[in-house]
């Protein structure tokens, strides 16, 4: 074995086009414009998905019943990040909980503001802090704040 060479090259994954089904994310996003969380409920087992899905994982049937879930919920778990997802250090640690909104079965991840990392606990009640100017994008749900 004489040497191993490193060849620098790029692989631009962002050139992929992703087509998505309308019932789930699109409905969630359009609901966000009105400061509402819209999930999809399975007509058979009653599971409420958020973001919604066009099929039920468990029943394997097509589903499309839009249902509003509460924008208040409970912290199910959380992590305190010291770097962003690409590993760049953050100036302040960032609390990212998963929240189970009232009337919803799935947990939703977001950022939590207005509370020190050491004061966060599983089971604490939080609510969505909606943006003043909403455009129907994920940014409308700015972050979570204590209830």
């Amino acid at each position, binding site marked *: *074995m004489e040497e*191993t060479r*490193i060849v620098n*090259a790029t*692989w631009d*994954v962002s050139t*992929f086009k*992703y087509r*998505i089904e309308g019932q789930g*994310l699109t409905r969630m996003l359009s609901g966000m414009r009105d400061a509402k969380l819209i999930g999809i409920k399975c007509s058979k087992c009653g599971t409420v*998905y*958020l*973001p919604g899905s066009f099929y039920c*994982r468990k029943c394997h049937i097509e589903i499309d019943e839009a249902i509003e879930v509460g924008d208040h919920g409970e912290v*199910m*778990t*959380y*992590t*305190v*990040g*010291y*770097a*962003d*997802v*690409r*590993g760049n250090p953050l100036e302040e*640690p960032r609390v*990212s909980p*998963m929240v189970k909104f009232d009337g919803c*079965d*799935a*947990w*939703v*991840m*977001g*950022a939590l503001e207005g509370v020190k*990392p050491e004061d966060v606990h*599983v089971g604490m009640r939080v609510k969505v802090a909606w943006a003043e100017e909403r455009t129907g994008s*994920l940014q409308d749900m700015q972050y979570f704040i204590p209830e």
Partner: protein
Amino acid sequence: MNRKIAIAGYRMKAASDLVTTRERLTFELTRGLFDDLGIDRDHVGTTIFATNDFLDGRTISNVFLDPPAGVYMRDESKVEMDGLSALVYACMRILSGQYETALLVAFGLCGSQVSPYLHVEYTLNPTYDRQLGLLNELSAAGLQARSFLNKFGYSEDLLDEIAARNLRNAALNRDQARGIKDASAKDIKDSSYLYEPLRELHTYPATDGGCAVLLASETKAKELTDKPVWILGMGQSIESYYLGERNLYESRSTREASGRAYAMAGIDKPEAEVDFAEVSSLFAQQEPILTEALGLYGPGDAEKAYAGDNGIAGSLPVNPSGGPLGAHPICATGLFRLNEAIKQLRGEAGKNQVKKAEIGVVHGQDGVCAQQNTVVVLGI
């Protein structure tokens, strides 16, 4: 199973940097294994690769890996998952009656040639999870760890105990890439937080590594080795991709997979019948989550287990090899667990050897927070 299948032999190699190429690693692992067994590539019926196009930087990467594995003018197929999934596929090929032997080759060069975290980033849902910009492999593991600690009322000290145990065991094992001799819980706590409660030493190391494993039918195995290790049962299960649709403190799919594997192996009481386990716990909290799902320890028994029962000298050892905190060559990690179990069953594990090793259970995973799980039961 309609035929008995055994593992005839294996070769494995891991380091933080193996200073090699994918082709050379493939060649050396397979050539070395054939030399160990005194055979040539003519003795290999079929070959299954477990590698990942993304990590290899080429589409259908087996096209350049087949020749160095001795597959010239033969048949080969690839499983783009953990190697233990490839093992299930290889077993099916032997069970078909078409082949007497099947060669498995698996590797990942994430220590020297590609970031281990990048492939998980591109696993994430592009239209939601990636846009949110909060999830990566480590933050997901942090959420899982917090969920587990909270569910059973454990402190973060438990994660330190788990990591210290594994890194101590890994230091005794020359097949591991990382180990810390006499590691203490304090050594672990001295490492930095990545995503709280997860610290640097609670997580797997970026690893170069790979292995080659030869499976054989009963007749062929007895020709090839005096120490065949038999595959007694196998099971697989997958749960929802979305973390928010799972209870992160448990692994339901591992429980389903192990139920299938134990049923095939005729095991009714795993906690009494299994002698040891090697599980693909990539982060400290996954070890107790997985061993509970495998039916070896009860929910909430982790503190008691880590007081000694699941150590090398304990009554039901878990990851006596040091587990994936010592090496996580992506795609090969499940087969590393298999190879470590083979060492135990053959009595060749040296300082990592457990007292009784007649039945072992091994586990492999894919996906964020162990979405897909494979369980294999082995015996002598």
